[in-house]
């Protein structure tokens, strides 16, 4: 068991436990905290793979901005713990095995594919910031400009949606 494999299992276990906690927690704030744990664990996995820039961006943008937005909205709307509904129990009893079957199917398909069977060669940092930014501004410049436009539209949309109606 090499150190990398051990670290991988620790981080993977953390991510899966965080995702399971997202499902089983009653209060949305606890679900949000579990999702933050998942994101930090994934950032650790990116670091393990050598993708340092993506790991930092994941924590800064996803964990530090998007999830802060979620937490603010939960606090603003004063979301409480989930109440009991009279949904059918049969759906739960039949549904969970089906969900497990779905992800088991996915996992088996992935494990059997010959593509991923090669052991990846670790060669230091995967792609440093310079390579990523060169590619971003040369080959992907058109999607890059489109996403900046998309963000502008999203900001305008959020402002329009959240303002109070003029009575």
């Amino acid at each position: 068991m090499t150190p990398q494999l051990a670290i991988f299992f620790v981080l993977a276990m953390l991510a899966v436990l965080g995702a399971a906690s997202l499902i089983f927690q009653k209060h949305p704030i606890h679900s949000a905290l579990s999702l933050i744990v998942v994101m930090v664990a994934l950032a650790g996995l990116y670091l393990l793979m050598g993708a340092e820039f993506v790991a930092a961006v994941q924590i800064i943008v996803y964990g530090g901005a998007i999830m802060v937005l979620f937490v603010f909205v939960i606090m603003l709307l004063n979301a409480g713990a989930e109440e009991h509904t009279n949904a059918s129990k049969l759906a739960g009893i039949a549904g969970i095995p089906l969900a497990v079957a779905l992800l088991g199917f996915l996992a088996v398909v992935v494990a059997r594919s010959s593509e991923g069977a090669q052991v990846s060669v670790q060669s230091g940092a995967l792609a440093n910031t310079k390579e990523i930014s060169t590619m971003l501004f040369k080959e992907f410049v058109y999607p890059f400009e489109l996403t900046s436009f998309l963000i502008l539209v999203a900001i305008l949309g959020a402002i329009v949606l959240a303002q109070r109606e003029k009575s």
Partner: protein
Amino acid sequence: MVPTNYYLILSAILFGLGVTAFVFKRNVITIFMSIELMLNAVNLAFVAFSQARHQSDGQVFVLFVIVVAAAEAAVGLGIIILTARNRQSLNVERVDLLKL
């Protein structure tokens, strides 16, 4: 060295858990968070493939996915705030009619 398979299996597991949360939870914000979980699982697959093939395309795609997720979160949470104000509840089972 960790085989790429392991990362892909983990990505599949996280995606499956995201789908499960999407289907089973009743709070609309938690459902939204499960969408983010699914996007994260996909990001992991992207980076895993980028490492396997030694190209940085995958990581650039991850940046785009993160940006699109941010834009979607902003607009989606705006819609959620409006809906919660109108219907006084965050339970998706109460949002099943076009009428209030």
